[in-house]
């Protein structure tokens, strides 16, 4: 119970410079480091007797983008909200940059940023005040210059003094990006991050995500936009009815799920999640371990 443990003083204070978007190429996985930036082990979550997530284990390396996909109600948001500490961990463990979320929660969260699917800004605070508050929250010094950079990058400069309550859905999303990027997190969790963004916003977001990853941040990207996942993610994790049905690269998915070479993530997704729906927690892979290429057909 980290009720009164001190906050870790070493909040990262890196700075980035906007870069043009590289040509969309298939992402290649970074070389695995010794300790993953994010490690989830045997995580389970139950709501009033209903299993939402069952025995999920996986890890994300520094510099890696993991695409989290699954049908509605698969447990993606529950998993992300538990990893970032919004929901308490019922079972299992989460380690962020070496800090246990259960034992050293504040230190673990110092390295983390979370963008929910529908960010809610403060009605009476301006856009710039949101950044000021975030800087205070994460102990970012010399934040003004970086805040201005981020506002420019996400095309919010004109809205600098607009109140949170006046922002449209897309603007709120952009503000959430700015706040998340401000302290240069080492682990970034995003739930449907591009919903509500205009094409320019989507492009800026994709560039920013790639850039953050290339600077060594581990990113989990949850989305139903499979093309986006295919474009950005080094590996994919398919959740279905609270269980992992596959985790690995696209090529591994094709091999494991007997999909033809060159088949898209959409086809792989369909193959991985087909079967009667409406049940609960009846995934076909009991192990749910983070073994590359593990899928339904790999189940013993």
């Amino acid at each position: 119970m980290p009720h009164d443990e001190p906050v870790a003083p070493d909040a990262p204070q890196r700075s980035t410079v906007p870069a043009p978007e590289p040509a969309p190429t298939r992402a290649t996985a970074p070389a695995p480091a010794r300790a993953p930036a994010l490690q989830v082990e045997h995580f389970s979550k139950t709501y009033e007797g209903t299993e939402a997530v069952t025995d999920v284990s996986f890890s994300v390396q520094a510099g890696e983008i993991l695409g989290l996909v699954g049908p509605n109600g698969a447990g993606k948001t529950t998993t992300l909200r538990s990893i970032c500490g919004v929901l308490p961990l019922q079972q299992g463990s989460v380690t962020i940059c070496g800090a246990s979320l259960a034992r050293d929660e504040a230190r673990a969260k110092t390295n983390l940023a979370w963008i929910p699917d529908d960010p809610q800004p403060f009605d009476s605070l301006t856009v710039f005040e949101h950044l000021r508050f975030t800087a205070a929250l994460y102990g970012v010094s010399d934040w003004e210059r970086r805040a201005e950079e981020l506002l420019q990058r996400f095309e919010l400069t004109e809205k600098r003094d607009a109140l949170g309550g006046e922002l449209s859905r897309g603007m709120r999303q952009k503000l959430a990006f700015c706040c998340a990027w401000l302290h240069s997190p080492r682990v970034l969790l995003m739930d449907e991050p591009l919903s509500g963004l205009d094409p320019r916003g989507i492009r800026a977001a994709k560039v920013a995500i790639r850039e953050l990853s290339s600077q060594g941040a581990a990113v989990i990207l949850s989305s139903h936009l499979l093309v986006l996942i295919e474009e950005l993610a080094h590996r994919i994790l398919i959740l279905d009815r609270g269980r992992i049905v596959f985790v690995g690269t696209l090529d591994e998915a094709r091999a494991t799920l007997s999909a033809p070479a060159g088949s898209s993530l959409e086809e792989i997704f369909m193959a991985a999640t087909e079967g009667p729906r409406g049940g609960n927690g009846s995934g076909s892979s009991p192990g749910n371990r983070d073994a590359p290429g593990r899928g339904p057909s790999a189940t013993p």
Partner: protein
Amino acid sequence: MLGVPMFGHPALRLLIRMKFRGALRSQVRKLRRPSGWLFALLGLILFGTWIGGFLVSTLLQRPQTADGAGLVLWTQIGLLVVGSMTILAAFSHRGLYLPKEEIELCFSAPLLRTDLIRYRLGVNMLRSLIAGTLFGLGAARRMPVGIFAFCGVMVTMLTVPILGQATALLLGDAENRLGRLAKKLPLRPIAGILGAGVGISMLALLFADDEGLHETLGRISPLRFAHGALAGSPALQVLLAPLVPWARMISAPDAGTFFAWLAICAVVWLVAWELTARIPVDFRETSLATSADIARRLSRLRRGGSGLAGAMMSKPRAGWRVPWALGRGRFGAIAWLKLATIARKARGAFLFSATIVFFVSVAMTVAWREHTVKSTLGGALAMAIGGTIYLCSGLRFDFRNDLDQMEQIKAWPAHPALIFLATVLPQVLLVSILLAAGILLRCAGIGAFHPGVVGILLFLPLLALSWTAVDNAVYLFAPVRYAPGQEGALQHVGRSVVMSLLRFGLLGVAGAVAVLPGVLTGVLAEKYLDAGQTAAWIAGGLVTWIGLGAIDVALVVGGGKMLQRFDVARDRG
């Protein structure tokens, strides 16, 4: 715990300052528009009248010089009431309440839970300063030394939020365990048996003979019971004992006594603050539920759902087959949608209203048990008018519930007036049925009936439709979205006054236009056509009924126009 600031994380203190500044800034921005100025001015006048009236009455009141012991006792009882209300309020804020815009941010940020508790304690204490000022001014005139009383009340009011927060945190922790226990108990049958018991008792009262009733009421006089309990109850003394320091501080007759008790209260405050901040409870799950619950309630309030239907929203439950009572066409479909919503989401509010009507019928039977025409018709008329106003204000199953669906509603392939009528008609019918049942129950209770009651029953749907149509038309004209604590309170008060005046003005005009021809017809029929009194009444009633019906048609058409005018793009509900 060393290194944790007593008043929490600096970022959260910054947030408090920025939110305060933001609220002021929003207020200033609202004043840029002429309507903002006007409504603010009206609001200021009303606030000023209220606070001024309170201050004047306080200052004009003669200082009361009760004996020391009596003063302390009554102060303790006052504090007990405040404390009990705080504890009761904590039931609806289990865990640590954080607004929806703060909860995800704070829970995912590198903050200690103790920081969050300290932050909420600070916010709650700042809010209680307003209540403290009002109570302090009131106490200042009643206690031996005004300034000590005022300061004492302020210190007390700064302690009360700590009690509330500690209770909420402990309740949140106990909720899961108690929740599991409650699930095992047969709560529905228990509630059913209790409800049936109360109902049977009321029916017994309704049909009991007068002498037996008076004897029964005399035996269970609540005032006599309360006086007996207060006289020297050891249980009450035990309850009041912990409140002695605050009561003594507020009622201190001299500086020595005041500062001695103030020191004790300050120490208690400090200890309570630290202990509450360190309660080792993981409140996240309960807080998320509480935050979502309160966000829903605030959203309903902002939509104007301030009546009973807004407060007592049941958990939606499928499975109830709702009949297509008004046909299977477009009109019937819209009305069915409304009926299904009532049946699945507002059962509690409906049953509560039915109970109120039942109790009112019983009370009116007991209080006015005469077998005369005056009693029969007077009671029915009072129930019809009073009941329509009360139920239509409480059971609001109208456009206030539908503000989030306005985009779809405006795209429905039906005339706006038809949509308007189909939306308000289920509420009108339910109110009419409830009131008709209440009126007939009373007639059965007093054992008398008059044909005029049938006339009153025929007026019920028209009365309810008039009220509901005006209410909804005005609401659609200028939807007021406000919840307590939201910015723009001044403007809201001013705007509410204007809207209420508009509503009552419209109702007054509609009523006059409907009633005057009827009265005129009755008088003319009696004087110039030599019709009997009964015939004149019937003729006058018929003309009024037709007039009210015509006005209702006009109101529905007007409501349709307002629906047509409603701009979804401008809605920021």
